């Protein structure tokens, strides 16, 4: 990895790691897979690694005022070191979870607390009835988000490749294979958490079973399943007035 590549990836981490980019979808690992794949010249591997980490973090999301593990940093560090070290999925999976917790820690300890500075400055400007300085104060918070993504990524990408190569060459084969297995299993946890949020009852299990069977036995495309899902959801919650009138 050249310094220029590391700088580009770290800048992407600084931009896409902002919370508002999460609402726009740019923070997701699947998108970082494409961007980092282009920067490192291996789009296919980038997207494969992005899809793997995306699947792991599908079910983990923020509710209310809580701060969730940082799937953005997880994706960026996992994908870039996965490509650069040549160890692929195993490295990505092994690094994604610690990177997510690091990003969460930086948000709790740096971004959220330091965002009080623009807030309190704005209190002052509001008392003077001035709008422009408040706008600048608000926008300046972007710097904190940029640092949150940029600093850990530049360290991890520029200095981490050697470390990853060292560690992964030293550990036994079954450990590396084990991370591969973990990467296959972890998405199940996210889906369990999603289903847990929906709440479980007989009908939910029936709908779940329908989706599972349509993919498992019929190998439907997942988009086809989503369309079938929309149709079933629509039919379930609407009533047919004509049929009811005919009674």
């Amino acid at each position: 990895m050249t310094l220029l590549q590391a700088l580009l990836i770290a800048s992407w981490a600084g931009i896409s790691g902002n919370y508002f980019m999460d609402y726009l979808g740019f923070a997701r690992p699947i998108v970082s897979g494409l961007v980092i794949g282009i920067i490192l010249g291996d789009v296919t591997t980038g997207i494969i690694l992005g899809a793997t980490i995306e699947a792991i973090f599908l079910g983990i999301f923020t509710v209310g005022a809580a701060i969730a593990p940082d799937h953005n940093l997880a994706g960026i560090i996992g994908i870039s070191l996965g490509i650069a070290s040549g160890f692929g999925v195993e490295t990505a999976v092994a690094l994604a979870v610690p990177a997510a917790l690091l990003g969460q820690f930086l948000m709790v300890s740096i971004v959220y607390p330091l965002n009080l500075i623009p807030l309190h400055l704005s209190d002052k400007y509001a008392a003077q009835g001035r709008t422009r300085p408040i706008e600048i104060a608000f926008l300046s918070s972007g710097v904190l988000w940029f640092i949150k993504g940029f600093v850990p990524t530049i360290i991890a990408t520029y200095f981490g490749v050697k470390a990853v190569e060292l560690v992964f060459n030293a550990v036994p084969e079954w450990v590396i294979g084990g991370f591969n297995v973990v990467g296959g299993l972890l998405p199940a946890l996210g889906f369990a958490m999603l289903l847990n949020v929906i709440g479980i009852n007989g009908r939910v299990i029936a709908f779940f079973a329908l989706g599972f069977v349509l993919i498992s036995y019929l190998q439907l495309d997942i988009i086809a399943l989503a369309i079938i899902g929309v149709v079933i959801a629509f039919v379930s919650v609407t009533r047919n007035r004509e049929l009811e009138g005919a009674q």
Partner: protein
Amino acid sequence: MSLKHKEDTKDIVKNEDVNSELENQDIKVKVTKKTLNSVSRRILLFENSVNFERMQSLAYTYTMIPVIKQLYKKKEDRKQALQRHLEFFNSNVSTASLITGVSVAMEEQKANGKPITDESINAVKSGLMGPASGIGDALFWGTFVPIVGGIAASMGQDGSIFAPIFHQVVRVGVYIAMIFMFVRFGYGQGMNLFQYAGHGAVKKITVGAKILAAIVIGGLVASLVHAQTGITFGSGESETTLQGVFDQILPNLLPLSIFGLLFYLLNKRKWSPILLILFVFLLGLGASYFNILTIGE
């Protein structure tokens, strides 16, 4: 009875006509379409300044600034408007756009001399932000985001470039359309928005989203969870793989079983997510050491 009722409604209708005529005469300053669009664009940056003290209050103020500048020309009025929006606010951004629309409508009425206090503007905000985050978190983060992400992750497993492109076209397109529509809807409805909090349509959408999510999660367990066993019986020509037996019973039996186990530990045993992540790592590494599980093809 019914006749009297009809007359009553007639009276009300008449009164409303008179009222709306009065209102039209009263309106001196109006929020333009351009300003509404500027509010919508600013909402896209909403979480930038989030903090533990007042969460999204600065973002809310930033969003309202074009409205404040258009409606209030006096410094004192601007000061009051800026200060009232710097009060605590926290909600899901996708649905908070509805509340912003309502605030714009209320500011407009206030600027035209209607008896609306700082407290009532903030009371409406804090009254709506709870239900809005509940619905927004469940529908946006709990349904829309994982379904689009799940589809993209399935598409991207072989490195297809369409996976991230599909993801962003849907995520950006739907989100921006929603924000612009919701700001307008909130502005048009004003305080009437409260009546939608327990509305039948909202319930139907929530139930429908849960059904859709349950179906897609079932499919994603089959397509994105990977586990195969490498255990074999016998030797030579009579060698059979345990995976082959499983596949005859039910394809993806192992992914389904692991999903079931994790769901049981989460739902019934109340294990925390961090503990479950550790459990999955130990399970995967242990199964790899004893050569029980492989990733498969």
